């Protein structure tokens, strides 16, 4: 029998690697965070890297989707090389930020990281890569566009940010089939400039942090910190989109600022979702979920539900009532325990892969928040109450038939 005390797990170490952006002498404020973060986990069997750049809000009408098409083309161009190294790369798109991630076995990680960074920062795709990217995107977008869920995602953005902003905030960050077919290789090569090192923040996880940190520091220059764009937010906005569907797709969005306690807000989202989730007590509810959307001045907690059209207004009221009670009296202890226990597990599962963790860390850096190797999920009652009090007046949107329109009454 072995002595149990002689093997102890080593906690991951978080290193913030240089390349801090230059401070503005007119507004010294706190020193900007570095541009690169590295987590060292000696027992990791893979290396993961994430690079975040500003998103697609710059896109003017008629150019929707150029950013994602350029991103996918860059990845298609390096896919054969990554496949030969048994490495995987992907890109996730939001209006505020695009996140590229790589996962590679710890054997030969350096070659995979070099291919990945060259593919982003020194891209040279050919027409075949463009056509493969276009084909993949068209397939997924054609399915997406037909779904009320897609309409619902756009509707809540209109409710949050009003109608006067550019299509980049209000339109789909991942393109539409109609414009995708119009771009040629010259357009895509121009679009690839959006992924320049001067615009990037990065994070990595590796068994040995120093080597990968050094590699990233060589690529990401230490000039002014790039800014994730921020839209104007409309207080208590409303948006109704009429669709001849049998169900109503409802969203209630609570805006928050840069200093918000995002993990506590996530738990509030889980509490609201629990209050409207399908079950014997909620026969009109078909699905419920919640999401955090980010932008350069904070973001929003979006709680969504699919309900019968007549019940949409009632469920929207319930969501707001949960938040109002959380501010006044806090979340009931039994609910806090039950939902918190489940939320903790789900949150950790969402960060189970190293590439999802580095993506979260890189996004935190880009948004000016200190990154952590794992989030702090100990959220006592007072922290939850304070997070609820920091939320702004909610916006509402609903997609569905006329009977659902009542949900967006002022």
């Amino acid at each position, binding site marked *: 029998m*072995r002595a*149990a*005390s*002689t*093997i*102890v*797990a*080593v*906690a*991951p*170490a*978080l*290193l*913030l*690697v*240089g390349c*801090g952006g230059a401070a503005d002498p007119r507004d010294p404020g706190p020193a900007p965070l*570095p541009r690169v973060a590295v987590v*060292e986990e*000696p*027992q*990791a*069997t*893979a290396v*993961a890297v994430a690079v975040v750049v500003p998103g697609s809000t710059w896109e003017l009408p008629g150019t929707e989707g150029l950013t994602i098409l350029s991103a996918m083309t860059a990845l298609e161009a390096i896919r054969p090389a990554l496949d*030969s*190294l*048994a*490495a*995987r790369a992907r890109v996730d798109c939001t209006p505020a930020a695009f996140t590229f991630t790589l*996962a*590679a*076995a*710890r*054997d*030969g990680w350096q070659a995979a990281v070099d291919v990945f960074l060259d593919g982003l920062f020194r891209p040279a795709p050919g027409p075949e890569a463009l056509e493969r990217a276009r084909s993949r995107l068209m397939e997924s977008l054609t399915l997406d566009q037909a779904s009320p869920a897609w309409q619902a995602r756009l509707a809540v953005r209109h409710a949050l940010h009003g109608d006067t902003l550019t299509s980049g905030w209000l339109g789909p960050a991942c393109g539409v089939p109609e414009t995708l077919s119009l771009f040629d290789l010259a357009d895509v090569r121009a679009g690839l400039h959006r992924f320049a090192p001067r615009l990037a923040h990065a994070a990595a996880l590796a*068994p040995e942090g120093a080597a990968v940190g050094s590699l990233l520091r060589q690529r990401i220059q230490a000039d002014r910190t790039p800014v994730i764009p921020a839209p104007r937010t409309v207080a208590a906005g409303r948006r109704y989109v009429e669709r001849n569907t049998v169900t109503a797709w409802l969203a209630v969005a609570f805006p928050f600022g840069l200093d918000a306690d995002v993990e506590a807000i996530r738990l509030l989202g889980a509490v609201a979702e629990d209050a409207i989730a399908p079950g014997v007590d909620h026969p009109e509810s078909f699905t419920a979920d919640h999401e955090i959307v980010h932008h350069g001045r904070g973001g929003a907690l979006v709680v969504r539900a699919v309900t019968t059209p007549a019940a949409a207004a009632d469920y929207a009221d319930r969501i707001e009532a949960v938040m109002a009670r959380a501010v006044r009296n806090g979340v009931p202890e039994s609910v806090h325990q*039950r939902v918190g*226990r*489940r*939320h*903790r*597990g*789900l*949150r*950790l*599962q969402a960060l*189970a*892969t*190293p590439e999802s963790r580095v993506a979260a860390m890189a996004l935190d850096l880009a948004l000016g928040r200190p990154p952590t190797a*794992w989030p702090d*999920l100990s959220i006592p009652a007072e922290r939850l109450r304070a997070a609820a009090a920091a939320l702004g007046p909610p916006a509402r949107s609903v997609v569905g038939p006329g009977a659902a329109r009542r949900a967006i009454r002022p």
Partner: protein
Amino acid sequence: MAMIPLLLAAALIPQSSLATYPLQPHGGPEVRVHRQATPLVALRLSTPVPVTLPEGAVELLQELARPDAEAEARRFGARVSLRHDLGRAVMTVTGPATAFDAMAAILRRAAGTPDLSVADLRRARARAEGRVLARLEQPAPRVRRYLHYGLHGGPEPRGAGGTRLGPEAIRRVGAELYRPGRVRVVLVGDVPDVVIRSAFGDWPTAREGNRAEPRFDTAAAAARPQADREWGGIAFPVEGDPAVLAVAAALVQQRVERSALRYGSVEAWYEPAPALVLVGAATPGDSVVEASAGISDLAVRDASAVPLTDVRRYLRRLIAEAAALAGTDVVTRARTAVRRRLLLEARTAAGKAEVIGRVADHCGPAVRADDYLERLEGVQLADVRALLRRLLETAAVVDES
């Protein structure tokens, strides 16, 4: 450069990324522990499935356990998986380390005496039958299953007869399947040894009594296979190093991917005995398959009197090509690919438990996962060529769909 100080534990022995140590709880199964500082814990329980069990018996046991297991897992945001890979029943639970006791309890209950109320049994039978028929009615899984039957025997898998076992037979099969001496548990996470011993000690044991073979209902739903093209498969029993088999399979897979065969796969099987298995399909009139018809294969002998279909002849040809074309570079690439796929799979707690457990299941408890990775690095061109040449001189088990 801004740095946050490294966090170090007080007493430290460096561990490799896949190293484990055994714990033997009193009256319980052996637990192989990989100690890793992570807020997630992954548990994997596996047990070998006797070939004599009727088709669907394992699925029935799993579907009886599933509702409670999933409901309990949902309380903690944990994930449960219950599956039957050819030759092995596997249960996994992944969730927060703070819920370890509850997760271990999920496995204990799933491996214990099932709830056999009429309603639960009826629901479980329907779900189990659906799983089994899906396996036997889709061409690729059906071919694989029949190749397994051809290699290792047991009742012919015509339908879902094992889902009709009676309550006494269900209890007997479950008690034998999950006997502590048969079960292997792998744990990845940071849980104190004393807690692990407590969670897995005094495992449910088999009841004494009638040990007759379970009888199953041959009148249960029979499979109705469907295919819109010709499917075929060949399986070769293999002897030797599992690492060589894995590299040889990867090498032949590369050959299949470069061929014109649209639906082709190569697998290395290890239980209850090793085999190399190829499955593929072609539409009638496929030029590549027609072109291979009548081609005499390199040094092929087949003792079976059943004539080969074109797809199977083509698969056999691909093995011959792989053997002839294999060079040092090709073997190096294949073994590197196998290693890297395993390392990538092991990048999560659940993936690491799966890799550690699968290596132990396939290669025996004496072979650790990190040793297996070293063995892969040692596979040479001569080893792979020798294995492929032996295959071409071996009587294959053939199947068609």
